[in-house]
């Protein structure tokens, strides 16, 4: 057992899988000698060599495109895009090629690749470093979108993502990278994809969230508990394809649902969950589904970012509004 931060857990998962499977390679900017700007790939070059831990030229579309070419040729590439705002140029490659390689060749070729990128706000980063692009990726057919929220889940889900036979976009919440440690085993055990994790059982309200916002949502559940309300907290973890059944089953017990997301509100992934709960769980609901999200604004720079990220207060208020709805 080891006490690891989320970034250390990512590093362990990469090392463990590169040792287990020699077809796994990593590529990206500054991931070699420098160990990655967040140190996700620290020590991998020394251990696995520069041929498998590939420092690339500064070209995000090329990183994604090369990963596709490598995957089709039988490697298992794990590509790193340095910051979330720079991942948008890879959408062409992920949407037009990675997500449909298997489909358009009727299974003749496949694209088992992982595209990792740090995302979300809260670390006083420069412009374009604090994006929440999950809905954009979740809209793409043929891929998986995974967004862990703790060291142990980051480890197990990254192992699963690398072993998955299809492309996976793996989003990593930067503000959780070093926020806390978790006791975990580096034993190569993967966690299931396409499955929600129920982090806390409750009977009064279901709080659904993922990635960076899991931390604030758990705090909100603590506050609600102090006020006498038991909140169930669900970490969606895999956003595409996602496990609606766990969410619906929870809402059927609590009758109240709040979806918490840092991304902009309109056409966000929170809207997808709210729509699914309304469509399939309307008669179990005692109140309208509430969304607590980032605003439809540009994510602000450091001085204002704490006002943008949904606060514990906003989550608690939304939960109380739905619980006390009449």
């Amino acid at each position: 057992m080891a006490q690891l931060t989320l970034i250390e857990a990512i590093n362990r998962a990469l090392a463990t899988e590169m040792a287990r499977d020699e077809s796994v390679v990593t590529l990206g900017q500054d991931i070699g000698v420098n160990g990655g700007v967040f140190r996700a790939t620290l020590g991998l070059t020394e251990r696995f060599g520069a041929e498998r831990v590939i420092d690339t030229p500064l070209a995000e579309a090329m990183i994604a495109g090369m990963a596709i070419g490598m995957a089709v040729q039988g490697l298992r590439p794990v590509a790193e895009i340095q910051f979330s705002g720079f991942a948008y140029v890879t959408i062409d490659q992920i949407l037009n090629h990675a997500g449909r390689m298997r489909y358009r060749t009727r299974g003749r070729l496949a694209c088992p690749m992982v595209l990792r990128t740090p995302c979300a706000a809260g670390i006083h980063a420069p412009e374009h470093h604090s994006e929440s692009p999950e809905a954009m990726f979740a809209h793409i057919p043929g891929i998986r979108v995974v967004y862990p929220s703790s060291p142990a889940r980051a480890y197990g889900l990254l192992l699963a993502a690398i072993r998955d036979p299809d492309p996976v976009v793996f989003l990593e919440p930067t503000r959780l990278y070093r926020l806390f440690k978790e006791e975990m085993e580096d034993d190569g055990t993967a966690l299931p994809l396409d499955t929600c994790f129920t982090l806390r059982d409750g009977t009064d309200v279901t709080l659904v969230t993922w990635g960076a916002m899991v931390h604030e949502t758990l705090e909100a559940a603590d506050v609600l508990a102090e006020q006498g309300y038991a909140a169930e907290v669900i970490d969606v973890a895999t956003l595409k394809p996602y496990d609606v059944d766990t969410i619906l089953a929870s809402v059927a017990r609590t009758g109240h649902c709040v979806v918490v997301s840092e991304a902009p509100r309109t056409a966000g992934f929170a809207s997808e969950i709210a729509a699914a709960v309304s469509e399939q769980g309307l008669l179990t609901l005692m109140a309208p589904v509430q969304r607590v999200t980032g605003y439809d604004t540009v994510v602000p720079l450091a001085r204002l970012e704490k006002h943008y990220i949904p606060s514990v207060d906003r989550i608690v208020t939304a939960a109380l509004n739905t619980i006390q709805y009449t």
Partner: protein
Amino acid sequence: MQPVARFEIHYTQFLDEHGRAVQAPPEFAADTAHVTDLYRWMVLMRTFDAKAIALQRTGQLGTYAPILGQEAIQVGIGSAMKSDDVFVPTYREIGAMFMRGVAMHDILLYWGGDERGSDYTNARGDFPICVTIGAQTTHAAGAAYALKLRRAPGAVVCTIGDGATSKGDFYEGLNAAGTWRLPLVFVISNNQWAISVPRSAQSAAQTLAQKAIAAGMTCEQVDGNDLFAVRHAIDRALTTARSGGGPSLIEAITYRLSDHTTADDASRYRSADELAQAWKREPIQRVRTWLMAQGAWDKQREEALTRECNERVQAAVQTYIDTPAPPPGAMFEHLYASLPPALEPQRADLDACTSAPESAPGGGAEQV
């Protein structure tokens, strides 16, 4: 000031437009039986091309991108590549794909609106046609990196049109190939037109070949309508690539004698005179003239070849026409290695909405 870099781009031609050797032909051309075989491929491709257009015009095929006038490049690539090599093509390279073992009916299925057309009969490791312009250059770099990492014997050939050389992806792919000295050969089929945009409006660069110099790569220009020049250049580039000598780029100068696709009308933007001039340089006649001069070809053999090509193409058309459309549920197949449970309700919804079988592929093809 001191010059710190200089470059030259060399142009190669063996057979001129009249089929006369302007210099001693390359070694492989001494084998006239082999050249005859390559000539037969060129004629087969042109026969297929004409038939595909006819099918589209009669509502039996969707939008199709002709290869008319570009047969020498197709045959140069197809004959120089080996089975260990990997082809990463654009949509105007189907002739080379045929030589790789892709069936003619595969291509008809593809343009007829059936994904099974990319589940190639042979050449199972080759990439599917890339429609988004230039993106394939980065896939080619990734595939070549994988070959190099595994110490595999083959190399990658990636084709690009003249328009694609204006894209960022193109430069990123070239830069990657140069950086890691990948076993990769880029072939630019410069057919002078990117739909309606002429070469002169595409780039101020004197040649498209020279763009590879910025990536630290060997490059040259060849007469893309001269089978000998194309084949010779690709042979040499592939030999270099396979032996660890690094990537190269070949700009093959040709001309798109057809419309961009069957949905295009090139007379809107280019003159009849330019087209007539281009026809004088087309690639098939000069090989025929050369073979006849060698005593390796005659009218009788030409007539027999015409019949044979028509029969082979007709057989492919029949296979295509006889292939019923896949059931609607096929759109959920091969989306993932196995369909995630989350998509099962959508599949059930589709099943509930569709019960009658679809018509044959030709009948339902839509024009884009």
